[in-house]
């Protein structure tokens, strides 16, 4: 229950950090440590090098950049949760953080850490997909961006090269009146979701759907954007949209299954939570 031996590095600047990851083998980035440290304590991971990036203050900015909301990778989950800027631009994020773990974890845990750990049951990748997040990464050689739709390489593995560090995410808030809801089922409050839904929609004057985004967490390695359901419910009323949920969830290929929860149960939850989220999103869209 103690970590295996490792070399500890605490770079003072981003350039130092990028130089380290450019050359070191078998390293792990220590951000909030709330996912990494349990794995190290259990010796599920045994890095030769731990690179502590908690001194890189430039990575924890939460700011508006034109029409976008930029959240730095080292932003603490609690700071995002309580940010007035986030509440005004993208309140679905604040709602999602109500379901993320516990206060003690959110005080240290980071947004970037969650996106790089990429647990399929996590809430943060889910809202990132709902808000069309674009991930900024850097290496000693330069910088690039990765749309959230391309971020998941495989189960719990982001599309990050061995010498790349995530800097932050640019999200696209919705302008104008719109409704939103983040729904989740977990056995205990604060647990990872069994299934969660992020739903956002805007209505036409006649009350039908003008724009919609629905993303699931807990059913696949990457957050599942419900594109076909979205297309089907465009222009529909609330009742017509609700009636279309079940068949589209049934048509999802390859819903995750594990020792705790079957794919059939996850599909059932997805249907229920999608309907609840749509109802709440319709209410808040008025």
């Amino acid at each position: 229950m103690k970590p295996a031996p490792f070399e500890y590095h605490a770079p003072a600047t981003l350039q130092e950090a990028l130089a380290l990851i450019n050359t070191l083998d078998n390293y792990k980035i220590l951000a909030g440590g709330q996912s990494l440290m349990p794995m190290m304590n259990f010796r599920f991971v045994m890095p030769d090098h731990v690179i502590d990036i908690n001194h890189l203050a430039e990575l924890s900015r939460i700011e508006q950049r034109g029409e976008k909301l930029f959240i730095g990778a080292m932003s603490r989950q609690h700071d995002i949760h309580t940010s007035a800027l986030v509440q005004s631009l993208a309140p679905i994020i604040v709602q999602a953080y109500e379901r993320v773990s516990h206060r003690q974890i959110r005080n240290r845990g980071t947004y970037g850490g969650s996106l790089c750990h990429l647990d399929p049951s996590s809430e943060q990748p889910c809202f990132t997909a709902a808000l069309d997040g674009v991930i900024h990464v850097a290496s000693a050689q330069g910088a690039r961006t990765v749309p959230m739709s391309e971020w998941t390489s495989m189960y719990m593995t982001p599309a990050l090269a061995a010498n790349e560090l995530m800097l932050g995410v640019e999200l696209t808030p919705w302008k104008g009146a719109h409704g939103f809801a983040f729904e989740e089922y977990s056995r205990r409050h604060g647990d990872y979701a069994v299934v969660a839904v992020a739903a956002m929609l805007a209505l036409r004057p006649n009350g039908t759907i003008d724009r919609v985004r629905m993303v699931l967490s807990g059913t696949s390695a990457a957050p599942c954007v419900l594109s076909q359901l979205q297309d089907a419910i465009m222009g529909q009323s609330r009742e017509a949209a609700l009636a279309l949920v079940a068949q589209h969830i049934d048509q999802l290929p390859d819903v995750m299954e594990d020792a705790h929860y079957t794919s059939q149960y996850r599909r059932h939850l997805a249907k229920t939570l999608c309907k609840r989220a749509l109802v709440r999103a319709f209410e808040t869209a008025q």
Partner: protein
Amino acid sequence: MNTKHIQLEVNGQVYERTIDVRLTLGDFLRHELHLTGTHLGCEHGICGACTVLLNGHTARACLTLAVQANAQSVTTIEGLANSDGTLSELQTAFKECHSLQCGFCTPGFLTTLTELLRENLSPTEDEIRMAITGNLCRCTGYQPIVDATLLAASRLRARVASTQ
């Protein structure tokens, strides 16, 4: 290098040590500083018994490397009482409401609820229960912990009111 020299403040006192970089803050507090009030229940961040205040904010000592506390300020259960040794309002309420039995979870609850009351002197029962979702107790069933927090909050509010 596998050891590092650190200097940090714990409960108002400055300590300097050279330690193994893989030593967790929980083990540092317990074995280096002999502050054994911080308990290790699960060592993976779930039980909350190891919760301390790091720069005033709750953190799991089992998930923090001691080297990360270099140049930081830590408050443990041992640092919650008043400087004259009397128990804090929250600790007193815990005593009166029988909010502890075996006491294993108690340090984590006290640091967590200290943070809550610093931020919110009028928590509702729901807000208290939300604040303690990250702390497990097998003995009390949580009600006496909630009762003690409500009691301590009302006494703290009365104290504030009486100074105005």
